């Protein structure tokens, strides 16, 4: 599996993909964190979905990681696109046959690819955390937010918890992308369906069907990133998300293992 991991990493580290993605991660995290602090007095809200996050909240120990967790949805979408395209392009380029001739144990191939993409996701999450913290400290003065509590062990612990939760959430989004890539075998189709579901269908369902949000995979992945929210508790979100992923992985793994490779 280690050989698959490094082979996949060779593809993931190509400059256009790697630096392009990381540049987007830095830019979006900086934007989200900046809006959080610079629009602190805005009546239209400074947080996700128009939420108002006031000074009192930001001055708490976990206030340091609010910007970071707010960027998790975007990080998740990036992960979904990367995992889906890296998986489905093996079909569209016809390169899957090259890989399977060298690693005929298909589930090992899949696991190695997945771990390599998880490393990619980990780097993006680390970068996002760093940018978010740097921008939070840099803009706290301008937003008149007192940062004394951010230097405590509670703040460091909160940041670490948020980091783990965001990482779980991002990898969950990526796994959804990989499952779609395996089943649909086309990067464009997999990404289109994945993004449309997460951004459009889930929101429509949440607005029209009561309590549906707490059973939606995208919504639950976002809830995990924030450590629980008004939609659902953290443990509920984690269980629902795990169930979706387990079923998806089983179905995709079954088809990948059994399906003839004819292109």
């Amino acid at each position, binding site marked *: 599996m280690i*050989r*698959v991991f*490094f*082979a996949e990493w*060779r*593809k993931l580290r*190509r400059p*256009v993909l790697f630096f392009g993605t990381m540049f987007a991660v830095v830019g979006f995290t900086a934007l989200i964190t900046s809006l959080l602090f610079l629009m602190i007095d805005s009546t239209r809200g400074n947080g996700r979905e128009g939420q108002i996050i006031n000074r009192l909240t930001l001055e708490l120990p976990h206030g340091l990681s609010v910007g970071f967790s707010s960027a998790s949805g975007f990080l998740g979408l990036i992960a979904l696109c990367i995992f889906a395209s890296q998986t489905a*392009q093996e079909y569209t*380029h*016809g*390169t899957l*046959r*090259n*890989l*399977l*001739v*060298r*690693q*005929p*144990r298909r589930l090992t191939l899949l696991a190695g690819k997945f771990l390599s993409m998880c490393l990619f996701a980990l780097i993006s999450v680390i970068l996002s955390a760093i940018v978010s913290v740097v921008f939070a400290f840099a803009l706290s003065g301008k937003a008149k937010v007192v940062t004394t509590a951010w230097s405590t062990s509670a703040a460091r612990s909160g940041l670490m918890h948020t980091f783990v939760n965001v990482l779980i959430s991002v990898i969950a989004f990526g796994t959804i992308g990989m499952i779609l890539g395996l089943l649909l075998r086309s990067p464009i189709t997999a990404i289109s369906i994945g993004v449309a579901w997460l951004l459009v269908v889930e929101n429509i369902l949440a607005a029209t069907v009561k309590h549906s949000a707490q059973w939606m995979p995208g919504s639950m992945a976002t809830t995990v990133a924030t450590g629980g929210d008004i939609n659902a508790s953290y443990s509920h979100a984690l269980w629902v998300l795990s169930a979706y992923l387990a079923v998806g992985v089983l179905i995709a793994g079954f088809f990948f293992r059994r399906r*003839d*490779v*004819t292109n």
Partner: protein
Amino acid sequence: MPLEARELAISVTDLTKHYGERAAVSHANFDVPMGTVCGFVGPNGSGKTTTMRMLLGLISPSGGNGKVLGEPISDPAKYLDRVGAMIEGPAFYPSLSGAENLKVLATLGGHSLDQVQVLLDRVGLGDRAKSKYKTYSLGMKQRLGIAAALLPNPQLLILDEPTNGLDPAGIQEIRDLLRSLANEGTTVFVSSHLLAEIEMISDSLVMLRQGEVIFAGKTQDLLLQQQPTILARSEDPKDLPRLIQIAREAGHEGSIIGSVAHILGPREWASTLNKLAFDSGITLAQLSPVLPSLEETFFEMTGAGE
């Protein structure tokens, strides 16, 4: 005398692949001896690529069984590290360079990265190693595919149409490369539409038609099975109809093509024809028994030209 299993690089028995009602490959039986070049020929859609895919574990047979390098095709992990393959044309990542593409595959297969430049030089891509794959011509892509197949220093090389898109010089280079690999002990199983090339390099041949093996054996044996032709040219072209008449009276069909009489008959009958012509007052300027080419044999056996 039948070869023992350990002397066979490929051995398939009743290998079958169905897609719904349609049989892409039907009860195929053939062996490929170790260290030989075996041509795999048949019209488009005759099941060549499907057979190769089954040998490489990419698709599962519907029936029958096979062995590659002594291991069952149901467990490709046991032999694929000793097999190099290019199936249905080259396939690589467009935004990676040729060298980087090979490094991905070398890493995956656990092969030395030092091999990459050596192989790129060997297939004539050394100076374009750093160019992106998407900028390669069809011939260059084909060469990269062959280099990738050679990465594991394979005991068995399975190549599907390796000369597609190559110019005549490139075709000759690949022919020489395959021959030299065979001389070094590598078994080469190669499909191609260029039957003249196959005839030149292959020791044995597997011929498919509509999913069924219609010949499997030595190339020379196949050609010897065919009706040989005697080409005769008379000093006076006006004598050719009379020469054809003489041949027919002796039980051999013939026809005139251009200024040459083509008479069906075995090599040894040429001297008899010469004597009969002389007795009839016809002086022959040329008399040469020839075997039909693989291409002529192919068209006759597969009906592909019809």
